[in-house]
């Protein structure tokens, strides 16, 4: 692809993203007109309710979607290149399952021990859930890092990741079996994913954490490109295979852990977005793919958030239902087109 085409493509994606972002601000159970939105954004509006809806709900939600989408998409790209497997995604490391287990332990055990449902603890419960998800994800991440610093073979590593995922989710299931009904409900809701959990209060920490991970991923492009040639060639070109996979797993896992902690386990963005990026730009060059995958991930998350909040749905559809519903057909069509 020529440079000019690439620039036009990227500009198009960014424009589309801006449009989606604005749409995210005024579509919802309360429809707000364009004019009013701009009034609110430019602080000309004094209507309290509108201000609250936009600044306290829709804006942070759109920002969350933007950041989470970029993070998950890049995390997926890193996994696909590391494992040389187009079906790889962050869930292969068992990170989401680890987060689920953490949340499971907090939600389900609190009920069993104290006899009261977690939701009855109010504000503490949301902090507790995020923290538990993060700790669960990080524990699994550390286990995977320990394995990856010892194992050179990527297939072995995938299998270990999948087994840890199974292990974590089976423990979660066992916990569920002994839990209160209300708690299981709370756990299921968390598992559906949502971009509304971050809000303004947690936004600075969330945004900075994600930005650090995204920034770090930009430094991986050279090594990821060499890895496309295969392990033997990469090693011969001076790449330290084990150290490299530790770094890639660390960054990918870190991004996934943060998003899962704040938004729940969001499926499909990590798997599908790299395929769309490769298809649109006909390239495996990571110097291009990493930023483009971020942008496409942002767009997709904003789009899914929009669908989940369409008027008439009254409240939010689970994000996971929407990401798979939109993502799956896209991946099928991209792969079919590529085969031709």
């Amino acid at each position, binding site marked *: 692809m020529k440079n000019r085409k690439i620039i036009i493509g990227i500009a198009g994606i960014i424009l589309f993203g801006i449009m989606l972002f604005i749409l995210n601000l005024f579509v919802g159970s309360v429809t707000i007109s364009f004019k009013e939105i701009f009034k609110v954004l430019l602080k000309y509006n004094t209507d309290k309710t509108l201000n609250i809806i936009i600044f306290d709900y829709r804006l942070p939600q759109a920002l969350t979607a933007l950041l989470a989408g970029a993070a998950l998409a890049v995390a997926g790209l890193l996994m696909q290149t590391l494992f040389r497997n187009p079906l790889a995604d962050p869930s292969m490391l068992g990170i989401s399952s680890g987060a689920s287990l953490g949340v499971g332990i907090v939600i389900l055990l609190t009920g069993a021990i104290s006899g009261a449902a977690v939701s009855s603890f109010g504000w503490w419960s949301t902090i507790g859930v995020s923290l538990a998800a993060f700790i669960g994800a990080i524990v699994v991440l550390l286990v995977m890092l320990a394995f990856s610093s010892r194992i050179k073979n990527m297939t072995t590593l995938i299998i270990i990741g999948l087994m840890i995922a199974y292990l974590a989710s089976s423990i979660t299931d066992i916990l569920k079996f002994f839990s209160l009904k209300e708690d299981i409900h709370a756990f299921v809701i968390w598992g559906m994913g949502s971009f509304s959990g971050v809000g303004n209060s947690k936004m600075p920490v969330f945004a900075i954490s994600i930005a650090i991970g995204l920034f770090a991923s930009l430094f991986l492009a*050279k090594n990821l490109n060499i890895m496309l040639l295969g392990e*033997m060639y990469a090693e011969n070109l001076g790449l330290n295979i084990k150290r490299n996979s530790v770094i890639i797993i660390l960054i990918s896992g870190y991004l996934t852990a943060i998003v899962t902690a704040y938004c729940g386990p969001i499926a499909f963005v990590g798997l599908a977005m790299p395929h769309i990026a490769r298809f649109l730009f006909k390239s495996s060059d990571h110097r291009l793919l990493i930023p483009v995958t971020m942008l496409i991930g942002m767009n997709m998350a904003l789009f899914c958030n929009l669908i989940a909040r369409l008027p008439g749905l009254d409240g939010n559809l689970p994000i996971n239902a929407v990401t798979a519903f939109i993502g799956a057909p896209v991946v099928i069509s991209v792969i079919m087109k590529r085969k031709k």
Partner: protein
Amino acid sequence: MEILKTKSLSIGYNDKAIVSNINVSLNEGDIIALVGPNGAGKSTLFKTFSTHIKPVSGLIELFGKNLNQYDNKNRAKMLGIVLTERPDDIFLKVSDVVAAGRAPYTNMFGKLNDIDEHEIKVSLELVGANNLIDRIFNTLSDGEKQKVMIAKAIAQNTPIIMLDEPTAFLDYPSKIELFSLLKKLAKEQRKAILFSSHDLELLLRFTDYVWIMAKNQTFMAGKSNELLKNGILKEYFNLKDEDNDFLLTKNM
């Protein structure tokens, strides 16, 4: 000038030696063929030289220094490899694949300077593939991919290039073209070229030395025509008399 030397080297996996007591050296300008049946340990030797696996015992010296004392980057500047399997399913431009050979020399972002760009162009010219520079690697034929991977190894600018069965997927004219290229690299660029091959007739024509790895775990090295003359090749390859005579008349 001596580049690489092994001292009672044993190679194999998990401390189990496949071939023991290898004492050979690679010199500047040498073109050497490694022959032997499948499973005799040819790839194992390549993997050991490229430090993908550790030697079971013994020593490999590169410019007089133990090979495992080189860090990754410096080793990458010494020894380039070309494998039998071609990388597949990559949407990189040929120039980007060859640019990978510059990885040991570029900064952490892989930014190419004028020297790098020049090396990439010259490498592609050497293998006769400069017309492919803007093509997508995935769309190339097997022979073209092979040339690009060799160009990658040339761009890596190493005193040694090792090729694992480089003629495996090629037709006869391409084989001759490849052997001539390897010879040119050895004689004109003063590189040491080591490659494995089953094309006995051709490799006798193009190489100085042959290293033989036989099924019974023996290793033997010698001048190509001497090995032929004193019947060692005949014995290891189970050549019929008339085939041996044919090779003798062609190569003497």
